């Protein structure tokens, strides 16, 4: 079951600035994000990608700047860490955020596209790092959300599973607002995303607004 996509919407970020003490993490970042148009944030480590995601998700507040278009929008996310309930199975982890949105048999069929069948009854604590990452991706794309944020979603995935994961992401986030971060241009191409670059001071270098 694919979620019905809402009419197109836009999120506008203007002059977002964030510091931790003397360290300037985001320096007047401005972005225009639109549903149905995946965007990839590329930046060196420590350039503020995670901070930007956290501000968008409402987990932190910016020192200055504005974000418009988030009102009433629901989120899902792949965090930098997997953040899974380790004693739960993949199905239980996904059900934790989706509730009864999908019938169990349908959800199981979807999960099998990214995880081996013999893993379905195991708690994720017994999963490899790549399997945990795929579970986190499944959780994010299957949750009923308007905005999907993914912080380096392909970390720990081999080329084959990365391709499979990208196909699933494209399928289940169609029509949603997708913003993800990566260090690889190939990852951006897999998801057909427009590339936005943050420089090491957390300023946006391209494309200009």
């Amino acid at each position: 079951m694919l979620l019905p996509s809402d009419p197109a919407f836009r999120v506008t970020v203007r002059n977002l600035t964030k510091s931790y003490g003397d360290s300037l993490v985001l320096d007047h970042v401005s972005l225009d994000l639109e549903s149905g148009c995946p965007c990839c944030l590329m930046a060196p480590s420590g350039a503020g990608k995670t901070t930007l995601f956290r501000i968008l998700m409402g987990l932190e507040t910016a020192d200055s700047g504005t974000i418009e278009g988030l009102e009433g929008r629901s989120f899902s996310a792949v965090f930098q860490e997997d953040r899974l309930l380790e004693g739960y199975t993949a199905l239980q982890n996904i059900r934790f955020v989706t509730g009864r949105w999908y019938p169990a048999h349908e959800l199981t069929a979807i999960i099998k596209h990214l995880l081996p069948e013999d893993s379905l009854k195991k708690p994720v604590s017994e999963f490899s790092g790549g399997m945990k990452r795929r579970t986190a991706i499944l959780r994010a794309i299957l949750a009923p959300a308007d905005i999907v944020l993914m912080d380096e979603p392909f970390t720990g995935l081999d080329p084959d599973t990365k391709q499979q994961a990208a196909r699933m992401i494209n399928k289940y986030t169609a029509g949603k607002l997708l913003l993800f971060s990566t260090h690889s241009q190939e990852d951006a191409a897999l998801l057909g995303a427009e590339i936005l670059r943050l420089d090491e001071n957390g300023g946006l270098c391209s494309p200009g607004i």
Partner: protein
Amino acid sequence: MHRFPDWSRRTAILLFWLFLWHLASLAVQNQILLVGPLDALKALAVQLASPASWGALWFSFGRISLGFFMAFLAGLLTGSLAFWKPLAGEILEPAIQFMKSVPVASFVILALIWTGAENLSVFISFLVVYPVIHINTLAGLSHADPGLLEMARVFRVPVWRQALSIYRISLYPYLESALKTSLGMGFKSGIAAEVIGVPGGSIGEGLYMAKIYLSTADLFAWTLMIIAVSSVFEKLFLLLLKTIAGNGVPGKEENHAASV
């Protein structure tokens, strides 16, 4: 890695201590000072054959268990309340500290004045167990994984589902450790209270009579009975907890009990 199976090693250790006990009793040669294991077992067999002993067991076990269950529920409730509403926790804190620090004997005398001897062990086991459960409930909930809580917040997971998953999982090991500690404490202090209050038809009365008649064999027999009953109760209660609340809890070896 040990060469022998677990059960055989445990049995051998138990037999070693029983043998040592037997040797000590032979050395002392005084049935009042130290009775041997065989005499203690004989006295236990006599007690097990007596309906009055079963009545005493039921009397004490029922009351101590009632106090324990009440303390468990109350501690869970007030520990959760203290977590969600820190002001409530601050209000409760002096009472918890009071219960922790006042000697059980003082409470026993107070309870004798208030409630009489019959329900003394209910009151005392409650007082001993309640602060342990309260403190560990608060500690367990406070140690919920902040990363998971953030995840749940982003995904807008309903609070009840967070409580049944994230908080339950963080609470479980604390509660398990708290139960292991407090179950034994509840039984010990409940029986000690009965020995002071001497309610009729209780194990405490049996122990008191053993003291009066200098019957060390009876004292040991009652003690063995208490150990057996409290061990079975502990195992059953922990199994019940695991069945109800242990689903999805990753294996944890470390001791989580908050200090009380």
